[in-house]
Structures are given as structure tokens and as C-alpha cells.
């Protein structure tokens, strides 16, 4: 079975490799000066090259603010060209919202701009970046060629920024990855949550400190004044609907895992349980659920003894 699969993969790969790899990124203007490059709601694969993430940029009168750089050097390079096709303004701020590989491995293409991240994110990229990068080579293959970890050089220490006509607020959270930057453009009312919010795609939990912490962070986000929300993964939406969905999923997952631990279920039995019908339509729902059980169930199990 496995060898057959390998043959299939080889055939698939050689047909992909015969054409030059290109993401063909496009940017959509969702609000004044505000562009989103939307990724697929899939898992990393050799077919999508890791383009499963949303990146965004705001073209202020003074220069460009870029939020996340994508999964590879190739992505970063295409993203830079895309920004250049929209504006001649310099890229003044590159932000890495958190230390997951699809959000910072495009940094190499922006080495001549200052790259900012929360201090903890910088530390985590320094610690884990190379392992992430290796894993991405394994998952998506040749798309990663020449990609190397380029650290964010600037620890983000301010909570406000005025650039051109735009006023940005930087909000520091921890729920998704241990250090998560949320950006609110108060001028346009666009909230860039990165992976604090997923929409129409199941969320990922490999580095959450605690689902309850994540939920507490979402409650803070719900109080913010904004019109449009750009999640880390999934479509842009109006109002709080994406936060509500993320919140509901996290509450369900937290409850599912604690109830299962109370019943003494083994990890395998928890994996086999059906998903709640509210969530089984989310992209990659089953796969991410199984991953989350692997990441988190041991904590619930230990707490129960």
C-alpha cells in the first residue's frame, strides 16, 4: 500500500516539477489601502506549496505595513512583487504575528526592511525555526528551495503606531502560539487576528499554552471595535462571526477533552469520537481534531488522576 502510494507521489511530483513552481499570488483590496492575500483552507501539501495562510498589507501615505510573510522564500519573493505592483512606497514595517512557519519563512525576501515581532516570538523562532523549516521541506518539497530562517530583528515594544493616515494598535496575546500579535487598524476598522482566529477552517493547537487562555483572549478580542476581520486562515468576514466560530470550537474541544478524561477514555477512543455537527463542515476538521487530541489530551488525562 505504502509503496504504491510512493509511486503515485513520484508521478505526481514529477508532473508538478516539470512546470516552474509559482504561487500566482493575488491581492484583494478589502478596505481603503488594505490588501489581503488569501491562502487556501487546506493542509500543507506539495500541491499548494504551503500557501494556506493569509498575509496582508496596508499602504499608508508614508509606507507599507506588511503582516506576515508566508511559508517560503518563493512566497515572500512573489509577495514582494505583488506589493510592488500596487504601490511604489517603501515597506516600512514587516510584522511576524507568531512563530509558526507559514507566517515568517518568507522573511528572507524582506531583509532590507525592519522585521518586527513580539520579543517572545523572536525567541521562539530562534529556538524552533530551523526545525519548522525542515518540516516544511518534508511537507511541501521543492517550493521551499533556498528558504532559510531569517529572524525578525526588531522586538515590537510599542502598542500604537501612526503611519500616514493610519493608526494601528498592537495587541499582545498568547492563546494560539504562546505569543500572538493582533493588529487593529483603527482608521479602517480592519482587525488582523492572525491565528488567534480561524474561520471556516479547523484551528491548530500545537503550541497553545491552554485552550482556556485562548478563550480568554478571544473574549478580549470580542470587545474591540472593528468592522472587518482578517483571520490567519480562512476568508475575511464582517463583524464578530469568525471570533464566535473560533470561540465555539475551542469551548467544544475543551469540554470534549475534559469529559473524555473524566470517563477514562484512552487517547485512541477520543480520536474515534465523532465531531460535533457544528464543526464537521470546517475544512480539515477531522485531521485537525486528531492532531489536537494528540497535542492536548495528555494534559486533561493527567489532571484527572
Amino acid at each position, binding site marked *: *500500500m*505504502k509503496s504504491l502510494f510512493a509511486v503515485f507521489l513520484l508521478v505526481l511530483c514529477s508532473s508538478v516539477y516539470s512546470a516552474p513552481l509559482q504561487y500566482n499570488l493575488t491581492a484583494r483590496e478589502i478596505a481603503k489601502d488594505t490588501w489581503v492575500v488569501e491562502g487556501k483552507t487546506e493542509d500543507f501539501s506539495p500541491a499548494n506549496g504551503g500557501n494556506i495562510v493569509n498575509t496582508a498589507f496596508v499602504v499608508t501615505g508614508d509606507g507599507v505595513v506588511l503582516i506576515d510573510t508566508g511559508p517560503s522564500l518563493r512566497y515572500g519573493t512573489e509577495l514582494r512583487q505583488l506589493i510592488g505592483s500596487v504601490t511604489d512606497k517603501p515597506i516600512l514595517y514587516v510584522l511576524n504575528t507568531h512563530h509558526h512557519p507559514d507566517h515568517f519563512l518568507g522573511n528572507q525576501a524582506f531583509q532590507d526592511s525592519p522585521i518586527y515581532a513580539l520579543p517572545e516570538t523572536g525567541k521562539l523562532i530562534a529556538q524552533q525555526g530551523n526545525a519548522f523549516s525542515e518540516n516544511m521541506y518534508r511537507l511541501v518539497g521543492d517550493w521551499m528551495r533556498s528558504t532559510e530562517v531569517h529572524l525578525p530583528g526588531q522586538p515590537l515594544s510599542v502598542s500604537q503606531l501612526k503611519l500616514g493616515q493610519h493608526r494601528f494598535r498592537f495587541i499582545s496575546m498568547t492563546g494560539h502560539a504562546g505569543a500572538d500579535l493582533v493588529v487593529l487598524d483603527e482608521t479602517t476598522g480592519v482587525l488582523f487576528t492572525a491565528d488567534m482566529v480561524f474561520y471556516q477552517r479547523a484551528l491548530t493547537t500545537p503550541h497553545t499554552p491552554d485552550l482556556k487562555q485562548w478563550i480568554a483572549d478571544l473574549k478580549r478580542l470580542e470587545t474591540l471595535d472593528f468592522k472587518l476581520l482578517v483571520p490567519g486562515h480562512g476568508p475575511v468576514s464582517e463583524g464578530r462571526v469568525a471570533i464566535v466560530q473560533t470561540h465555539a470550537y475551542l469551548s467544544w474541544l475543551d469540554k470534549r477533552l475534559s469529559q473524555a478524561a473524566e470517563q477514562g477514555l*484512552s487517547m485512541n*477512543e477520543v*480520536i474515534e469520537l465523532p465531531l460535533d455537527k457544528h464543526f464537521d463542515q470546517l475544512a480539515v476538521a477531522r485531521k485537525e481534531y*486528531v492532531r489536537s487530541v*494528540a497535542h492536548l489530551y495528555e494534559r486533561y*488525562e493527567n489532571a*484527572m488522576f
Partner: protein
Amino acid sequence: MMIRLLLLTLLVTVSAVSAVSAVSAVQAVESDPIQSPMWDYTRQQFIGSAPYHFDERVKVLLPAFAENPTQVPLQIDATALAGDIERIVVWADLNPIQHIFTYYPHPDVIPKVSLRFKVQQGTAVRAAVLTQSGVWHVGSAYLDAAGGGCTTPSTTGNGSPFWESHLGETQSRSFPLASKGGVRFKFRVIHPMDTGLADAIPEFYIQQVILQNAKKESLARLELSQPVAENPVISFDLRDDLNDQAGQYQLWMRDNNGNEFEKAL
């Protein structure tokens, strides 16, 4: 690749034919459902030339992918063969140390056990159940993995102060089994379970686990090997009528250094 598959089939057929005296004609056409290149080798190692067949009633529960290769959840359920089981041998074809555990269930227990193990790469995982008639019933599942679980040092770290002061500490709890009646004992014991394959760290792992009743009868006995994950979490299922002496159960364990650990459940 096709040639290799063909060759494999040929090999399986040939070895089956050579052992034809002990084996039914049906078996000659039974090929490994996982098509693992190691099947013939590991079968020889663990069940020798005894008669066997692949049996879907022996359930090997695994996730499709090892998200954490140092803690892969595994559950074996041979309930369909309850009362007729001599032992259950569980292994991973492509692990550097293949044997994971052998389970000797008392005829009165529910032959279902769960634990977590370490995996080095994608592999078939087998549970071979020897019945009293001498026939092996083999359940299989395939696990995909990025690898590295067996050569990664334990996180508690052999030689780290944490386990040195907590070695063998055991927490346990019992749970009523919802569906069939009965009770589940689940426990967690602090132990590095070092494989000996990580740099300069000698093997150090629990080898024996025995669950006894008040009469000192062994209800469930496990022989563990190095791939069992650190700080093992293990569950046994007992039938309801065996649970009328709460607090009378005793868990006993011993590691390869001769340390013994005991806990009343």
C-alpha cells in the same frame, strides 16, 4: 516497484508453501494487508512457523499519523476472542526495537489494553493473538510518521532531577465502563523509558507490569519493551463481577535495573 510487489507476493507464497504441512490451504493466499516488506521477518521473529491468519476482529487502534512520534497512542482490542487468549504480542515492523509489549490477560478480563509508544518512522503495527488452539490471529494497522521517536532522549531526561526524585510514582483511577459494564483501571507511572538508542543514554525502562487481585492472582500481566513511551499511561479493562472487592487490586512493576514499584488501586 511493481516488480518488488510481485517478488514480495512470490516470497509470501513460497514461504507459505514450504510450511504447508502446518498451514491450511486458505492461508497460502493470505497476504499481508499492509504489504509491509518486514512482515515475513517479524512474523518469524514473533510467531515463528506457527499457523496464523489475519483477523479483523483483532482491532489495532492507531491515529493515521504520528503527530508526536514519542507518544503514539495505541489500543489493542481482542474482545472478540475473549476467554480463548494465551497472549497478545504487539510490535511495529519498522521500529529499530520492534517489540512493544506482550499482554497476558486472565480469561476473566476484557482483553483490551491501551498505552502510548515511540515510533521511528512510518510502520505497520501488529497485534498477534495466540489462542489456546495454537493459532495466531493477527490484527494490523498502518501508522504514518515523520520519525525520530526512538532516538530522541526522554523529555524528563535520564539523569534529570525530576524523575530521580519521582521515579516510579504512580497515579491511578478507576472508571466504570459505560457500554458493556465493567471497570477500567488507568494509571500513569513516572519513568524515563529510555530506549538505549539515544546518544550515551543507557536503556532504562519498565519491563513488567502485573495487576493482581486480593488472592494474588495475576489478572493482567504486561511485558513491556523499550518503545513504550516515557511516563507510561496504561489502561486495563476488567469485567464488572471482578470489581466487587474495591481497593483490593494491586499493581506491581519492575524495571530493567531491578527497581520495583507497587500501588494499591
